[in-house]
């Protein structure tokens, strides 16, 4: 039966997760050069547009519809047929439609996360094709594996709010995308500063805020588990932000604002799979490690040489992997794990994360390589220099006198 309290919380959580995509748009938008800020914002917003339509037409059905051999959902719920105002199979306390809406917001933000990897160079057209293809061929199946009744869920992998489905997945895809689209013109020879860090900090604030819906909302109810997930999220985020600026203090002498924000996002990512299972003091540890791990993962990019413009690999990929592992170490509610005497869970966690990373990396590569055969992925060099805002969208972001 629909419960007003749980429904209230899930309505709010859904709205909060929706807000994360505009938040991401600004977080990313502030980090690019000023002549690409609109193009960057546009990609995130467009994910909200494209994925919403896709989700209603067939996405929800393929992800959450009746299981087909553990691999994908059936077409039975296409056009949301049968997805109604009564509770569905995933929760008996909220309308099925609401669960579907909540999940939609996760599906929308995941490809938006990837856009950070190829920022400042992809054509809008390629972005649209990629987003539709990737969501269909990568997101929907992986989501089904973990949450829709697929093999990974059956294996017992713990992924409370999408550490694997969203972050490992987008991180691996980002790596493929960065490699295949190639470096930005002038990468490492010209300065590429963030053009508006206050905008980025605003975005970080909105992401942090929205993430309470993401993590605490994943309890699908307003009760103890949601409360635990809420606090663990806050604690891990704080610890990770401090850890990141601590690393900066030691290595570069100066703690930075962008470092704080990056650390916070790293913490949010890392606690995601375990938020509802991990107690607040363990969350301190999860967060602190996440801040350091992601800081060094980002530094490594410099060595490895690919141009993941906004560090999706270093933050969502590395943070997501650590989160999957951390869940296998620290989870204390909802399953026993390593530190509570069950080493097997750790194996399951790692298996799930690596399988996702591998599938996502390969499938993303195939999609982009296929696309490369059919259309130019990147804007012309001249337009890259001039900026995508003008060449792709015919706009300028700022006219400030």
């Amino acid at each position, binding site marked *: 039966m629909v419960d007003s309290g749980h429904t209230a919380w899930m309505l709010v959580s859904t709205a909060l997760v929706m807000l994360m995509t505009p938040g991401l748009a600004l977080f990313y938008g502030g980090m690019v050069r000023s002549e690409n800020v609109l193009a960057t914002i546009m990609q995130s917003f467009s994910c909200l547009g494209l994925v919403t339509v896709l989700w209603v037409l067939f996405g929800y059905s393929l992800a959450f519809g009746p299981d087909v051999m553990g691999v994908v959902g059936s077409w039975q719920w296409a056009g949301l047929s049968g997805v109604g105002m009564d509770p569905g199979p995933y929760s008996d306390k909220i309308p099925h439609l609401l669960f579907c809406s909540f999940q939609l917001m996760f599906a929308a933000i995941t490809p938006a996360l990837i856009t950070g990897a190829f920022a400042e160079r992809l054509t809008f057209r390629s972005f649209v094709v990629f987003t539709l293809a990737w969501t269909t061929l990568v997101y929907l199946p992986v989501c089904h594996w973990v949450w829709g009744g697929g093999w990974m869920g059956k294996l017992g992998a713990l992924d409370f709010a999408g550490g694997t489905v969203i972050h490992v997945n987008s991180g691996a895809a980002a790596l493929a995308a960065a490699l295949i689209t190639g470096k930005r013109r002038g990468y490492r020879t010209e*300065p*590429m*500063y*963030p053009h508006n860090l206050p905008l980025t900090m605003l975005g970080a604030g909105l992401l942090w805020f929205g993430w309470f819906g993401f993590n605490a909302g994943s309890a699908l109810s307003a009760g103890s588990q949601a409360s635990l997930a809420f606090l663990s999220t806050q604690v891990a985020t704080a610890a990770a932000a401090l850890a990141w600026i601590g690393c*900066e203090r030691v290595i*570069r002498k*100066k703690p*930075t604002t*962008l*470092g704080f924000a*990056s650390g916070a996002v790293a913490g949010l990512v890392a606690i995601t799979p375990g938020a509802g299972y991990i107690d607040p003091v363990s969350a301190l540890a999860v967060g602190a490690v996440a801040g350091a791990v992601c800081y060094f993962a*980002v*530094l490594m*990019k*410099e060595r490895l040489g690919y141009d993941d413009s906004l*560090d999706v690999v270093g933050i969502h990929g590395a943070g997501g992997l650590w989160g999957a592992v951390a869940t296998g170490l620290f989870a204390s509610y909802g399953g026993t794990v390593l530190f509570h005497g069950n080493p097997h869970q750790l194996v399951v966690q790692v298996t799930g994360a690596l399988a996702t990373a591998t599938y996502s990396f390969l499938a993303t590569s195939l999609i982009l390589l296929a696309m490369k055969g059919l259309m130019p992925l990147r804007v012309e060099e001249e337009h890259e220099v001039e900026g995508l805002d003008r060449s792709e969208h015919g706009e300028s972001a700022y006219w400030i006198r």
Partner: protein
Amino acid sequence: MKKIEAIIKPFRLDEVKDALQQVGASGMTITEVRGHGRQKGHREIYRGAEYTVDLIPKVKIELVVADNAVEGVVRTIMEAAKTGKIGDGKIFILPVEDAIRIRTGESGPDAL
């Protein structure tokens, strides 16, 4: 007439402007510029990477003055702009052939 171009540190602008006004040179035009010279830039950090920013914010003051006013104006600027540290900036003096006030059409020194 001469045009005096002074490149100074931005935070001295108010002092220079006030000093010039006191010696009667109230007409001037200010531009925000960035300078490169002996003064070292600073390092900026962006996630993993570190960059050196070697273009330093400066302010350019331009005044066109009558020939006999040049010396006084230059001295005034030097006094008000000087901090004694590297990067205090330069003053350049260029010849001007004519000046016109748009509002009235006056020309020559009268237009200043």
